[in-house]
């Protein structure tokens, strides 16, 4: 295996102002009657990017994908693919292929006919089709299943046939609609990495729609978090997780504690926030909100420390409370701590040792503390 890590790390065309996007949505709106599925959306996707559209059901992510495939026409705005406006091009003339959530395999055709279907439509010579189909079967490790019909395959095998079929024509862009939704957890995790390797190997642009944040975080170069037809944030998984731009994103991705308060002091790239829970948060903030304005403070459970002893400086970023609930998950333990103000916060601790000496117990009084760069300030 070649090391994909280095390629990945250096791949960031979106930071280059001269890079030309491969796919551009420009002020795209899609209405179904009175319902606005996609609302004046502008989004750039780059060549060879693994891009994820993430959101709850009904947020417009599937509509966006279907517009890219050509099954829906935008009500307004334009979609540019490789320099060409594709709004008026029917799906069968677009250089994109889609892998469907239901796999949509042709039930009356064998695995190899399914994979060769797109090639036959292009009038490719028979020998070439056979060669390409064989190559695809090898790629998804289904060589011995070539003659089977879809109903003679397991769910995971069907998923791979669907993948092979959508890759057979070597599309410029592969669209994946909830590609792993129907697989069980173990298989899903394996397949995530297979998809990533495949995308690197083939050098294609992948656009995947998913409601599973873990899936998006694992696979994607960048994620667009969507809600009500709008993109709320587009960023790398790490940025989305560590620097959410809004309460919605912070809450949508992973677990988070949000503390509300008022900005009491700011300066030197730091602010102090008097929280409603009766203690002060001092934290780094890139563009600090004005003193006196309301703000939220978001901090992930794993960045909270739970200790019996008071931290060295208990005047900021520390609060007392009692253990309300303990959840043991194997790899880590989750504590629900009820602060003296009544608010319950979540803290998680990695179980780095097999046995913890004298662990904190239910109803014990503890300190919850965190560092100055552990959380993020939310202005809205």
């Amino acid at each position, binding site marked *: 295996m070649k090391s994909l890590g280095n390629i990945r790390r250096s791949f960031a065309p979106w930071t280059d102002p001269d890079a030309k996007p491969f796919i551009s949505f420009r002020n795209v709106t899609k209405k179904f009657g009175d319902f606005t599925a996609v609302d004046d959306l502008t989004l750039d996707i780059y060549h060879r990017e693994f891009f994820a559209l993430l959101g709850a059901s009904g947020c417009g992510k599937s509509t966006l994908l279907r517009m890219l*495939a*050509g*099954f829906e026409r935008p009500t307004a705005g334009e979609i540019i693919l490789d320099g060409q406006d594709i709004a008026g091009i*029917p*799906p*069968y*003339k*677009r250089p*994109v*292929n*889609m892998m*469907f*959530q*239901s796999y*949509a*395999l*042709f*039930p*009356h055709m064998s695995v190899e006919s399914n994979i060769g*279907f*797109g090639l036959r*439509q*292009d009038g490719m010579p028979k020998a070439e089709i056979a060669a390409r189909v064989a190559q695809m079967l090898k790629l998804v490790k289904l060589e011995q299943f070539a003659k089977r*019909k879809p*109903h*003679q*395959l*397991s769910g995971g*095998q069907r998923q791979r046939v669907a993948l092979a*079929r*959508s890759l057979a*024509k070597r599309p410029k862009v592969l669209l994946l609609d909830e590609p792993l939704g129907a697989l069980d957890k173990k298989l899903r995790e394996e397949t995530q990495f297979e998809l990533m390797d495949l995308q690197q190997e083939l050098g294609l642009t992948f656009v995947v729609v998913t409601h599973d944040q873990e899936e998006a975080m694992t696979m994607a170069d960048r994620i667009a978090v969507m809600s009500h037809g709008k993109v709320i944030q587009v960023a790398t998984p790490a940025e989305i997780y560590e620097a959410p731009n809004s309460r919605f994103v912070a809450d949508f991705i992973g677990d988070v504690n949000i503390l509300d308060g008022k900005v009491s002091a700011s300066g030197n790239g730091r602010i102090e926030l008097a929280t409603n829970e009766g203690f002060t948060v001092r934290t780094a903030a890139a563009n600090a909100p004005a003193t006196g304005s309301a703000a939220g403070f978001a901090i992930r459970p794993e960045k909270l420390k739970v200790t019996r002893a008071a931290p060295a400086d208990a005047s900021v970023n520390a609060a007392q409370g009692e253990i309300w609930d303990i959840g043991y998950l194997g790899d880590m333990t989750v504590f629900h701590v009820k602060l003296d103000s009544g608010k319950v916060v979540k803290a998680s601790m990695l179980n780095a040792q097999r046995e913890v000496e004298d662990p904190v117990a239910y109803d014990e009084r503890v300190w919850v503390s965190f560092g100055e760069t552990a959380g993020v300030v939310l202005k809205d």
Partner: protein
Amino acid sequence: MNSWSRFNIVSVVLGFTFLYLPIVLLVIFSFNESKLVTVWAGFSFKWYVSLFHNQGLMDAAWVTVRVGLLAASIATVLGTMAALALTRYTRFRGRLLFSGMVYAPLVMPEVITGLSLLLLFVAIGFDRGFWTVTLAHITFSMCFVTVVVQSRLLSFDRSIEEAALDLGATPVRTFFEVTLPVIAPAVLSGWMLALTLSLDDLVIASFTSGPGATTLPMKIYSQVRLGVTPEINAACTILIGLVAIGVVIASVMTKRREIQRQRDEQAAFAGR
């Protein structure tokens, strides 16, 4: 679980007697030696032999088969098209009216259908004969095809059509390479239904047929008015035999396919 109670046995016997006694009698008397239909005089095949020498009956049978095959085929094409339009284009103006009108012949008394068709043919000066019967049969059997195909289309996964389009198939090729093969069983059973309806139609054929285009049911009916002959019994027995064979083959094939499919699926989920 339940054992056969006396009541159950009586119900079954009564039911089957009610349904099949007339048919059994007909079959038995088709092998009767005597010319008298109600008096048994010994076993014989002679009415079958004379049936095949009865030119009138054989001609009528041939007309019926030709009308049936032609009418069923055209009705299947039209009915399938109507079913597609009704399930796919759900937002066109007048859809409700159209679907209501397609179904109307299902409940329309045959006498009315026949009479209205007769009036039409007379009005436009269309000479009655083979083609008018065929047209009339297309008209009334088409809606049955529509019903059968439409119910299949309602459970049709449209994403496979989208997949075909996505892979570069034009809408026409998508229809012939994906949609049609998948709904083929429903289309075929629609065709069979239309064929059956056409083969045993008497009322509409009587209204719309003309000289030289007498169908088998018409021929039988007119002969029976002159008195039942064992020849007719023989003809009916052959018809019953054909229908029975058809039904048995169809159900055995369905059953086999079902079993094969279940086996395949079990094999697939067992991992191999």
